[in-house]
């Protein structure tokens, strides 16, 4: 029983990342009609915002300690952190320890700038181009962004730990009489993604801005005819989608060490998620994200492994079955992306 619950938690956790990325993809697709293959790269940039901030906070000056030797026998260069020497070991240490949560704030301006630059500089010119062109140009952009990150940070994964207080395991299910332990940070990730998803939905639902955007998603031309500058709003939506993808990456950094190709690793999967959810449907994207996350978890669990290697193909198998039984995915709209 407890194992069953653990696998559900694993699924929800994986699903959180899928859902957040898919949500952004669907926002961009629904509002701008653009298939953005650089979305995985935005996720990756988010994760590297965590890395960068933790590097900045860990920035240190070098003093030479003649009593110790380095591997070549020269005097050892000792690094001491600015943070700790400015604020003392306790406050300074706490600031560096909380670098990942702080990166949520740090990433906002970066993601907004990247998002707007991408939309205004590139994607704007591709609204009227065939989807294949959109896919390819954003794919080219994704390669470039990925190579830039590799150039600056190398190809090795970079550990970006969660705050000490949140990197232990949480005891859950005490009241149910079950012994369930789960990493605290993974719980944080799950609730964080719920909050972000809830926030995006509330924003679209309850603000005038959101109303206009929703109207624009439904019928762009009419909204334009009403004298509303829909383009400006769509740029803002792109920036929001970039921030959502970035946040997904920021908070993901402690779960698995970020590397430069993590965006590509998630890209194909998140597209499958979006399509299974139904192109253009936000609830569909979120539901499909969690659904595929949970299915993937259970397929990797031996008890549910009906045949060898099921865990390798489950996502694609399910995607094929869903697309063949429900022509437009779980909640897709008719006529979207079918030409």
């Amino acid at each position: 029983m407890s194992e069953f619950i653990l696998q559900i938690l694993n699924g929800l956790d994986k699903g959180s990342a899928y859902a957040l990325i898919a949500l952004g993809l669907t926002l961009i697709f629904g509002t701008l009609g653009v298939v953005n293959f650089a979305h995985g790269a935005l996720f990756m940039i988010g994760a590297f915002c965590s890395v960068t901030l933790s590097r900045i906070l860990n920035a240190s000056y070098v003093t030479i300690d003649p009593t110790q030797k380095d591997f070549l026998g020269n005097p050892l260069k000792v690094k001491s952190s600015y943070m700790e020497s400015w604020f003392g070991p306790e406050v300074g240490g706490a600031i560096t320890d909380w670098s990942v949560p702080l990166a949520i704030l740090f990433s906002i301006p970066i993601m907004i700038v990247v998002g707007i630059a991408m939309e205004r500089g590139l994607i704007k010119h591709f609204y009227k181009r065939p989807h294949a062109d959109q896919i390819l140009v954003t794919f080219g952009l994704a390669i470039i962004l990925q190579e830039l990150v590799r150039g600056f940070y190398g190809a090795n994964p970079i550990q970006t730990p969660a705050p000490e207080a949140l990197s232990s395991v949480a005891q859950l299910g005490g009241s149910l009489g079950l012994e369930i332990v789960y990493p605290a940070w993974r719980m944080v990730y799950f609730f964080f993604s719920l909050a972000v998803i809830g926030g995006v939905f509330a924003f679209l639902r309850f603000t005038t801005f959101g109303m206009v955007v929703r109207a624009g998603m439904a019928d762009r031309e009419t909204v334009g005819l009403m004298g509303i500058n829909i383009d400006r709003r769509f740029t803002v939506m792109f920036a929001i989608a970039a921030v959502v993808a970035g946040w997904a990456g920021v908070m993901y950094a402690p779960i698995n060490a970020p590397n430069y190709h993590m965006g590509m690793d998630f890209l194909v999967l998140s597209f499958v998620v979006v399509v299974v959810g139904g192109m253009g449907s936000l609830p569909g994207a979120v539901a499909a994200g969690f659904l595929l996350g949970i299915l993937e978890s259970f397929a990797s669990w031996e008890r549910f492994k009906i045949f060898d290697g099921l865990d390798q193909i489950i996502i694609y198998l399910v995607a094929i079955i869903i697309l063949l039984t429900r022509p437009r995915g779980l909640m897709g709209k008719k006529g979207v992306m079918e030409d």
Partner: protein
Amino acid sequence: MTKNLTRRGVLKSGAVAGAGLAVPTIFTASSAAAYTNEPTGSSVTLGFNVPQTGPYAEEGLDELRAQELAVEHLNGMGDGGMMNTFSSKALKGNGILGKKVEFVTGDTQTKSDAARASAKSMIEKDGAVMINGGSSSGVAIAVQGLCQDAGVIFMAGLTHSNDTTGKDKKANGFRHFFNGYMSGAALAPVLSSAYGSDRNAYHLTADYTWGWTQQESIAAATEAMGWNTVNNVLTPLASTDFSSYITPVLNSGADVLVLNHYGGNMVNSLTNAIQFGLRDKVVNGKNFEIVVPLYSELMAAGAGKNVEGVIGSMNWNWQLTDEGTKAFVKSFGEKYGRPPSNSAHTCYVQTILYADACERAGTFNPCGVGEALEGFEFDGMGNGPTLYRAEDHQCFKDVLVMKGKENPSNEYDTLQILEVTPRAQVEYAPDHPMFAGGELGACNSGA
């Protein structure tokens, strides 16, 4: 083509269909040379084929650094590094056989196809007489097959699968790196003395040939020490999150987790295992332990604090104190400002050994060089007295058992040497069942 006679057997000899068409002599123009890419000018070209993109890119870049250094030393520049400590004194620092050493590089992308394409371009276009490097067993085996067909020597780089010098061994291929069997043989005694001989191990294994052979080796070696293998779960190479493979471990009754993973897989699975608090768990009254049978410095750096106290094995480490190691670390460190990794060491040593074999054979002909390397015993290249065994072209030397350091003082100091397992303990018969099924064949010089 006549060497075929012995291999194919008489049975099939009658079954020739229309394959009898004579080859027009014009198409054998290359037979003017005695062997593939015989160097005729004043220089000789070596091909360094390493992953420069993809998940093992850092490993590949370190290999490149080491190979460039080796070329410098061969050409008599720099401080000579391990050439001064090497027991064979055939090399004079004037290139190889008096020819200046040049090199070309290529990107394997850690894909068999791409690796073969770049090796081919080095052989066909640049006239490389030897291919060195690589960072994965699948690629090593694929390129080894290519070099066999093309008639050049292949030195394998980082490849740890038993198959490279087992089922898939080739006469033109040599491996300096150790293998899964040796890891098991070196690790098992250390593990049983550190954690006791009554342990239940749970294996997570990367689902490809290297993972399978390593798991088989480690399970066999630890079971011989009295351990029980509770379970072995295969994980897809493409996995990035291992949580759903780790959670079943929690209640499996196992008290040791063996991660047969490498590269990004290993970094993530180890990180996830630590996240789930496995290191702090007590099962069957014993502390839960994690073992990573194959370590590398770059991976350990990627896994950061998570490697603390985790035991694994390595081919070589810069912290060894023999003269060869010291000379190499000094000259590498002074040039690049960092200590070399064990894959860098492998590629450096292989380049020097190849050059030395050419000198001793007096030719670049792969058959002559292969003969000079077969059964070659030497010392002074780190790892103590070393043998290149003639039967399977596997190198035998001491193996290191490493442990993740608590409180490392800098980014290169993540692992410490726990034990140097003597060569005799990791040796095995060439026909050992884990290595059975292949044949070395005859050397091919491409003539």
